[in-house]
């Protein structure tokens, strides 16, 4: 089982992303859970959301405390929120930032895999908005590799309608452009 913790700010779409990812993983024949950090959320405030993906039925319903992967949607949270808390030492940290993985590794002193991509820059170019939640699904799938990027298409189409293709293009670019430092 892979457990992912997402860090974002209220309104950036972390919850939408965990939902789209879980729905798509299930449609691809996997078992998955997607859930928000339970409770009230405010626009702009730090939020977390969670994904579990497995090949067999998932029974656990408690929170995720030692994730395999942490995805940071908003790099301004670094230093504000302890994003690597509980992240397994051999886990994977994915950050939406123009910085290199080496820089992030130094900043956070995290020795596991570090991967970076300028998700916000891609989103701005591909969709005209600085909202990188769907873009970063591409980054995540490149790093965890549990399913093909194409598996996201149906859920993205249903959610975004006429702007779905732009989301898919942004996702594909993040998938292709992410830099991974093992």
């Amino acid at each position, binding site marked *: 089982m892979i457990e992912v913790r997402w860090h974002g700010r209220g309104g950036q779409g972390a919850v939408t992303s965990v939902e789209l990812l879980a*729905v798509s993983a299930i*449609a691809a024949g996997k078992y*998955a859970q997607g*859930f928000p950090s339970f*409770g009230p959320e405010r626009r702009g405030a730090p939020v977390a959301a969670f994904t579990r993906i497995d090949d067999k039925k998932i029974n656990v*319903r*408690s929170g995720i405390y030692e994730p395999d992967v942490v995805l940071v949607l908003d790099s301004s949270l670094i230093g504000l929120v302890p994003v690597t808390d509980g992240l397994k030492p051999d886990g994977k940290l994915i950050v939406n930032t123009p910085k290199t993985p080496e820089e992030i590794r130094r900043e956070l002193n995290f020795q596991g895999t570090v991967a970076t991509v300028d998700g916000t820059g891609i989103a701005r170019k591909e969709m005209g908005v600085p909202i990188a939640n769907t873009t970063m699904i591409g980054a995540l799938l490149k790093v965890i590799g549990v399913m093909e990027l194409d598996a996201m298409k149906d859920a993205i189409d249903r959610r975004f309608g006429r702007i779905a293709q732009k989301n898919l293009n942004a996702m594909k670019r993040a998938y292709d452009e992410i830099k991974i430092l093992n």
Partner: protein
Amino acid sequence: MGKRIGMEVAVAVAEAVGLCNIDMAAVYPITPQSHIAEHLSDLVADGHIDCEFVTVESEHSAMSAVIGASGAGARSYTATSSQGLMLMHELLPIASAMRLPIVMGIANRAVSGPLNILNDHSDIMPQRDAGWIALFVENAQEAVDLSIAAFKIAEHKDVMLPVSVNIDGFQLTHMVEPFEMPTQEEVNEFLPPFVPHATLHPSKPVTMGAFAMSDYFTEIMKAKDEAVKASKKVIQQVFDEWGEKFGRPYKLVETYKADDADVMMLTMGSMGETAQMAIDELRAKGVKAGLVKLRLWRPFPFEELKAVIGNAKKLIVTDRACSFGGPGGPVFSEIKSALYAEARRPLIYNYIIGLGGRDVQVKEFVGMFENVLADTANKAADTYEFWGVRE
């Protein structure tokens, strides 16, 4: 068979209710039930279901409206949580006394104060004696299946009682997970049209919710008690029918590795599957641990519970609510009563867990078993403890 899909559980519940050919819904939104209210109103507004969606100004009005509609012969649904359920409280015994087959989804949430929007069972417990059938579910599939089956139970001519389907708030309502959604055709085959035994109609007047003084009140209460008790048989029948049609049989009391268990735990609601993982860990260490999951809270399944407890020496009852100054959690005192007259009964321990959304991990369930097994002098038996409390 329905297709296996992923969906948020609250939305799935609204979709399932939407398959039930409901005539009327009155749902006042409250966290964490809100997505049921929103999605059901979408289904009506978008023309997917032919249903009167009554926008009300409170939960008191929501329950009043479904009582009126059900009395008029409409298949009626509502859903709520926490404070909303507390506001409905005075109407719940009226709905059951009038023998109205209303179905209500409850996204279980702690009651104030202090204000807390997260999951426990302190909203449903004060409704224990309202004369409603109360079902509990532990995952998306059960929430979908039993939200549909609840109509068939409620409307059965030998039941004619309101049913609550208890779905843990957030832990279930806000979870996206896989399940199979029955098709409209399958639900149509399973759930016949609602034929009320009497309806409010000007051309055929009847009295519902009449006045009764001491000369009849006791008899009416006795009749209601008999009706609630008798519903147990129909509930299992409907579960059996569901099992035959959909391949997912349900029982009033579910078990996990309970057959030869020396030490057992009892849960209600969404923590059952996490507790199952603790059972697996303990079994791997050679502890004969087992799990009992109460699906039916009212009517209480006395015989079925006794049958599954078997020869267990210790039983850990988990509660998601408090009875302040009482004998322990409400489920605990119920289980003690149920087993009191048994010649052989286990020592019963009580942990009050997961209040106001506090998470309970697998290792904590294991910890509860370890504590109880370490109590070789049985000092903690028959007492209750707030699990993990900071003092």
